[in-house]
């Protein structure tokens, strides 16, 4: 079974009178446990593809399947359920809830999933430990560095034991050391947990870590190969 399948997916945006094809007939399959980078220049459709795979958006045509389930026409509540249970997100801008501590941010998806408090505590401690932030659990985002915030975001994305994690430019706002550290953590967690990671990126550091690199251009797949690693 595939983690994600895209079949001839088209996503267009109308801006004024101009119709833009963000994705133009993309068909791709992602296996469980993949560690894949989606690359391409700005405007090539990387972010749009991630949003469709993450059930944040719906295609104009084509089919999106998550864990074998057709999610193309699910309503907003059903898509929210699916995101909560099966998909983790990591964003370029760290995207933590600013009023919650590191611990509470990681705990949030577990609360949304109705996990009991004992399990929540075990899971949050385990994840904060895994990203090397056990001693920062009581800190709020504004008390942490960018690298630390992104590691909290990684822990949060993995908290509900999702089928896959979608990361949109996860290293774009990090310096080299922090970027490399974040990638190494994700790579390690990918092998340990079997959760698929799919990145949209410009960053060669990410591509180096990826086992498969997909290249998009003008909303079409131009290369569907695997990296040299």
């Amino acid at each position, binding site marked *: 079974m595939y983690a994600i399948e895209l079949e001839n997916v088209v996503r267009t945006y109308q801006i004024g009178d101009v119709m833009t094809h963000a994705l133009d007939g993309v068909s791709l399959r992602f296996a469980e446990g993949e560690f894949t980078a989606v690359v391409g220049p700005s405007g090539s459709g990387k972010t749009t593809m991630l949003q469709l795979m993450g059930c944040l958006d719906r295609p104009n045509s084509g089919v999106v399947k998550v864990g074998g389930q057709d999610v193309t026409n699910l309503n*907003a*509540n059903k898509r929210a359920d699916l995101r909560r249970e099966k998909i983790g997100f990591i964003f370029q801008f760290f995207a933590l809830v600013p009023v919650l501590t590191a611990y509470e941010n990681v705990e949030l998806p577990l609360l949304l999933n109705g996990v009991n408090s004992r399990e929540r505590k075990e899971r949050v401690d385990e994840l904060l430990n895994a990203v090397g932030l056990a001693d920062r659990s009581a800190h709020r985002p504004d008390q942490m560095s960018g690298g630390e915030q992104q590691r909290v975001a990684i822990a949060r994305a993995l908290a509900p034991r999702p089928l896959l994690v979608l990361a949109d430019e996860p290293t774009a706002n990090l310096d080299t050391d922090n970027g490399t550290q974040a990638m190494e953590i994700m790579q390690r967690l990918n092998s340990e947990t079997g959760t698929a990671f799919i990145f949209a990126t410009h960053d060669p550091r990410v591509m180096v870590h990826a086992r498969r690199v997909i290249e998009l251009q003008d909303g079409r797949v131009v290369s569907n190969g695997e990296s040299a690693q």
Partner: protein
Amino acid sequence: MALNKLWVIAIRDLGRNRRRSILTILAVTLGLAILILMSSYIAGIIDGSISDSIYLNTGHLQVRTEGYEPEKASLQWQDLLENWDEVQARASAIEGVEAIAPVLWARGFLTTADETIGVRITGIDPGSGFHDPIHQSLVAGEYLGAEDRGGVLIGKHLADSLGINAGSKINLLVGTSDGEMDEDTFAVRGVFSTGVLTYDEGTVYMTLSKAQALTGAGDRISAMIVLTKDTEIAEPVAAALRGQGRSVVTWQDMNALILQAVETGMSFYYLLYGIVILVVAVIITNTLLMSVFERTREIGILAALGMKGRQIRVMILLEAGSLAILGIIGGIILGSLIVWYLMVTGIPIGDQIASMAQGFAMRSVLYTKFVPGDMVGLSVAMLVIVLLGALYPASFAARLEPVEALHAL
């Protein structure tokens, strides 16, 4: 998701822009304090006015002849009550009756060397407990004795305007039962000050027997005033006293003007209440909308994590509820403090305004009155309106598309 976690987020969100949250809470506090003040001010006026009217003038009930018209203060024998001893005996036997007072009213003129003023002359039984408020409000001289036939009590305003005091001599010219006028000289035995201008500037009290003799009313009276334990039992007591040839009117009938004015006035006050509450609701809506706009991307993140529109709506409503509850607590404290202060010191409105309230027992100093029921009602109304005001921003946040929200700046 556990409501308490949503509440934690809501409360912490309020702390992010403290100044805005405090100003919004302050708006609720001030709004509610104004409402509480208005309601206790109105309650104070109504209550004070009706209570003054009952205890200083009308009593809870009056037994009169059927033809008696109080405005005319008629002294025609057929308009006056005869054999009132029997009514007095019956009334005093009824449980809940606190005081009984036979009175005779007449119109007349008070003249001094320099001036003549129209007054209402009231013949009273000085021993009746109904007149205790007059006795207690004496500021000079002494009260009337049971057999006093040469003394009167006058109000302080009247005394001041005529430049007289206890011990002064005055002339009274009084209309009589046969339509003539009679005149006599009296000593001002005492000067009273009830605080109600209508009574303090226009009433002269003398003993009932002297008033009857002066007006030629014989042993008749204008009315038998009955004071009951409270307003509730006035009606059953009235029913027990009704009989052939006499009518019994209750405090509602006698204070119909005040009650009607209250009813008319209330619709105006409800309008003011509505405006105050609406202003607060607009402020809350504005605050929350600004807050939602500022946090659009964050709401997108929560949606991406799988939070449903319903939960986002509840989170914003909890923020509004927290603002409202903090504001309401402040409003109750501030409102109560102001009401309490004005209950003690009163609000001086001046004699001229008080005297404009013709037919009203209006004091020149008004006092507020605590009405806990109103306070609770207004607080609940405030909470409901705030939550209604928050519905729009909450629904707006709940309907945000995750993709668009995530792209917001």
